[in-house]
């Protein structure tokens, strides 16, 4: 039967999968970019360096985000949900999204579709930020209720 524990395990598996994908993309970036430029037929010759730079720099926030998500899930698994550390973790995740959006925005100058990645990352960052605010309020409420004698 499906339960919260299995749901967390599934989320962790998804994160690990995305970590593997991220690692595979970074390792195979030179070949991937060459293949993409050859088959895109969008006249992207000469932009290999920029694509590599975007992928390698983008690896940093993406890796931080996935690692933070994993730590967050571990805490939730331990039953530590509404704690200050999780608020901080969510704040970091949100900034990772915004940092990724910034990288995508800079990359728009050589490849316009990065704009979609930028909007998606910024929107995701915004959503996580709102969730962070909600959790921060929940932590304060929990604190108050625990210290009401």
């Amino acid at each position, binding site marked *: 039967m499906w339960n919260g524990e299995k749901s967390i395990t599934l989320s962790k598996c998804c994160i690990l999968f995305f970590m593997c994908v991220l690692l595979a993309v970074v390792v195979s970036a030179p070949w991937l970019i060459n293949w993409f430029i050859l088959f895109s037929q969008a006249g992207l010759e000469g932009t290999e360096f920029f694509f590599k730079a975007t992928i390698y720099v983008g690896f940093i926030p993406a890796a931080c985000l996935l690692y933070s998500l994993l730590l967050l899930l571990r805490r939730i698994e331990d039953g530590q949900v509404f704690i200050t550390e999780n608020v901080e973790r969510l704040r970091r995740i949100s900034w990772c999204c915004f940092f990724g959006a910034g990288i995508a925005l800079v990359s728009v100058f050589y490849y316009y579709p990065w704009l979609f990645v930028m909007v998606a990352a910024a929107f995701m960052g915004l959503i996580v930020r709102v969730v962070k605010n909600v959790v921060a309020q929940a932590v304060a409420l929990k*604190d*108050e209720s625990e*210290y*009401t*004698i």
Partner: protein
Amino acid sequence: MPIVVNLDVMMAKRKMSSGELAEKIGISQANLSILKTGKAKAIRFSTMEAICRALECQPGNILEYRDLDEG
């Protein structure tokens, strides 16, 4: 916080131990300790009522407002 809990003072006046008071008002010693050390964020009327009954005092004997800016 400018609200000071003078529970210790009242307990000393009535010569009552923490364990005894906790038992009389029906809360755990850990919660009583939170109250005594001023870590509590709020106090229920029912708890206050029980404390006043056990210590034979008024809420004002337990809670005190001190303006911290006055020094």
